[in-house]
């Protein structure tokens, strides 16, 4: 039986521990007494995936079997999660391909002719044709691209429809095609607890008009955490639920298919990244040293390419289909089985090693804003009940934070960094003063619609994403970060962990208690 996650207490016997820092990693000795949170061991995967998928489609939860829902002449829309999950991209075949092929097979056998597949990108960048081909598989791609398989366009007024408003007055504007279909089949990959559920259609296929109701500073500050979608815990999840129910009441029929993966995040040749350090064999130690040395010596382009090519050998741990809420409940149970780690109490300092990849820089560059989002948005929020760090405590993160942007993917990020953050880092001020202008800027909209750029408002969302972490922490220190870009983010730089701890004592006093969150693989700290 795989071992559950656990909390190590660093003692004299503890070897140096691996810490991710962007496109590199380091071995770090932690002070004695530091707590280290380790994820549970990887769960065994489902052996016969096609049968499991078929079983889920034919035996859905609180819904009729898919075969009964498919009728000749119907309008069927299949929506799929985009490239932002899973991370890193999984080895082929992608689970979405496996599910799509079975759904399409059933649709064909039931005489469905009007079938379109939408990549639910919301305000993310359009995926390239190569990326889509990789995700959906050659057969699906060749049959449907580009006419009936396409990226969602949240700025095409003809392709959107305003379905109505929720009880709280939130606009629900989603893809017209989805809203007018007889059935929407959503194919999801649930990498973190925030994914799936009503977020799939109500957010994945929504426009800025709809998204602005929950992607804002107020909602973020009231989401504790947004990785804990229990009612009342996460304002963003609550909002998505209201919108999803509104869609349901308006007659949008959704057949939700959700999948969960185990924790096999890194391939065999980087297997030491999946293991606990004291269990490393001599081979693992040699491999780590050789990889690190080669990586450090490689030119930046080669290094980036090396990391870009990493494919996660994720295995499926669960697939459920049917009514959105019932399916999502089962998905979360499955997800928690793999990711939940019980941690006793908060500490003065929390330490994160930020890996090379986040949801918004697949095949791209992790710019400073995404570093902020990954650290204070994602890793900080990987908790239930309360954060790992006390209110007013210090967050220490490892990342080089290069002043570097992907010109095609992140054009609005560049201006956000140069113009907005130069003036202020306060999320509320940024929202009031700048958001509208960036969101409606015709050039950014043009790039979003025709190139592969994230929407003009996306860097704002990234900044809001970290608002709760920023508000909660008394100080944020980046170990090894480029001082200029770190200062622009409003944080401080330290040369080493020792310096960072020394700096942290200004905020939390001498001899602080510390917790190192040893992720990836992804986990959720259930802080008691």
């Amino acid at each position, binding site marked *: 039986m795989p071992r559950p996650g*656990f*909390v*190590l*207490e*660093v*003692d004299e*016997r*503890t*070897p*140096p521990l691996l810490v991710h820092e962007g496109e590199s990693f380091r*071995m770090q*000795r932690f002070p004695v007494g530091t707590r280290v949170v380790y994820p549970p061991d990887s769960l065994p995967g489902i052996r016969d995936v096609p049968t499991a998928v078929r079983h889920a489609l034919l035996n859905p939860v609180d819904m009729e079997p898919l075969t009964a829902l498919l009728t000749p002449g119907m309008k069927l829309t299949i929506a799929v999660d985009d490239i932002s999950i899973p991370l890193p991209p999984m080895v082929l075949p992608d689970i979405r391909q496996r599910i799509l092929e079975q759904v399409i097979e059933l649709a064909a056998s039931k005489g469905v002719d009007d079938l379109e597949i939408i990549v639910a990108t919301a305000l993310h960048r359009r995926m390239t044709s190569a990326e889509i081909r990789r995700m959906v598989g050659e057969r699906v791609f060749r049959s449907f691209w580009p006419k009936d398989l396409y990226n969602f366009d949240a700025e095409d007024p003809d392709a959107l429809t305003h379905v109505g408003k929720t009880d709280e007055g939130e606009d629900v504007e989603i893809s017209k095609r989805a809203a007018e279909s007889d059935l929407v089949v959503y194919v999801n990959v649930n990498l973190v607890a925030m994914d799936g559920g009503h977020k799939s259609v109500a957010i994945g296929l929504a426009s800025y008009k709809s998204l602005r109701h929950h992607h804002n500073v107020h909602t973020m500050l009231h989401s504790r955490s947004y990785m804990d979608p229990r009612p009342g815990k996460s304002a963003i999840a609550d909002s998505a639920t209201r919108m999803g129910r509104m869609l349901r009441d308006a007659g949008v029929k959704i057949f939700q298919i959700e999948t969960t993966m185990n924790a096999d995040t890194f391939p065999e040749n980087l297997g030491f990244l999946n293991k*606990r350090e*004291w269990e*490393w064999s001599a081979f693992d*130690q040699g491999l780590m*040293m050789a990889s*690190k*040395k080669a990586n450090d010596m490689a030119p930046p382009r080669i290094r980036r390419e090396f990391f870009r090519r990493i494919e996660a050998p994720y295995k499926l741990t669960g697939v459920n289909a049917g009514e959105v809420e019932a399916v999502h409940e089962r998905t979360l149970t499955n997800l928690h089985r793999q990711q939940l780690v019980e941690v006793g109490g908060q500490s003065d300092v929390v330490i994160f090693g930020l890996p090379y990849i986040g949801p918004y820089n697949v095949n791209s560059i992790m710019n400073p804003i995404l570093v902020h989002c990954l650290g204070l948005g994602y890793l900080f929020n990987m908790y239930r009940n309360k954060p790992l760090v006390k209110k007013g405590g210090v967050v220490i993160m490892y990342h080089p934070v290069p002043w570097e942007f992907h010109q095609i993917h992140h054009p609005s990020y560049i201006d956000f960094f140069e113009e907005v953050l130069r003036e202020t880092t306060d999320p509320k001020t940024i929202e009031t003063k700048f958001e509208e202008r960036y969101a409606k800027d015709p050039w950014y909209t043009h790039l979003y619609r025709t190139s592969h750029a994230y929407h003009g408002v996306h860097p704002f969302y990234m900044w809001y994403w970290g608002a709760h972490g920023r508000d909660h922490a008394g100080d944020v220190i980046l170990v090894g970060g480029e001082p200029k870009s770190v200062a622009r983010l409003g944080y401080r730089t330290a040369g080493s962990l020792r310096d960072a701890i020394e700096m942290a004592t200004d905020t939390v006093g001498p001899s602080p208690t510390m917790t190192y969150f040893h992720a990836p693989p992804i986990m959720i700290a259930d802080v008691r």
Partner: protein
Amino acid sequence: MGTRDDLKEMARGFRWGRRPLVPKSAEPFEQPREDAVFPSDWARTDAGVAARQLILNGPMNAILHNELSLRVYGREHLEGVEGPVIFFSNHSSHLDATLIMTSLPDRWQAKTAVGAARDYFFDVWWRQAFTALVYGAFPIDRGRGGSGATDKALELLNDGWSIVVFPEGTRSADGHVQRFRHGTARLCLEAGVGAAPIAIIGGFQAMPKGRFWPKAGRLPVTVRYGEVLYPEEGETHQELTRRMSQGVAELFDEHRTTWWEALRRRERGETPSLAPPMGPDWRRKWEGSRPVPRRGPARAWE
């Protein structure tokens, strides 16, 4: 850091060339198994006793007298005492058990076993065998507490064996007597036996923690036996522990001054405490390692 530093750091952290260690908090939980311990009952058979006495009174005694300037006082307190008893002393050196076992009168030596920490002395077969043979040792779970830790001790006492235990639980790191734990007193009360105090003076100076052979120079070591303390009617283990600690303190006082003066101070309740001096660590170590003065006239070259 350069490659050389990286390698050094890895070699140190991952203990290259040595047994790899698992961090304590990551050790898998295992129910301790009784049968994992090397059996030691053979060492308390007639043949075992004969072999032990041969070793103790032969090579062990010779080594001790060769390496140390050893004096033993107070053995007369054991005359007329009916066994079994629990011998207890301060503990600051690996010499302690050997000093007690070699200095015990024959009658007692033949029927006395030493309690030894299971985690330290009973981890590998050869150490278990040596400890059992030379000291007739039996394992004590010092970390575990509860009744299971002292089951074997109780069994031996009931069989008429006297035992040697160190109520401090572990050797002193600074030479000072540490707080006595209550296990020994509980054992006395449970078995209804007396406790014989022993003070070992100079053991720390001669062979402190971390050494496996006495320091050169035949350093003076004194072993003092005190009167056997018997549990009183209605006495609690806390009270008995206090008396035991007091018993050792009186022996130290007697060594420092005279029997008469120590007696007077005891009557007045003024026996100096064994507690280490207050203040930082270094001060305790400094005081604890202060050389014990040699007896008799100074050597010509001193």
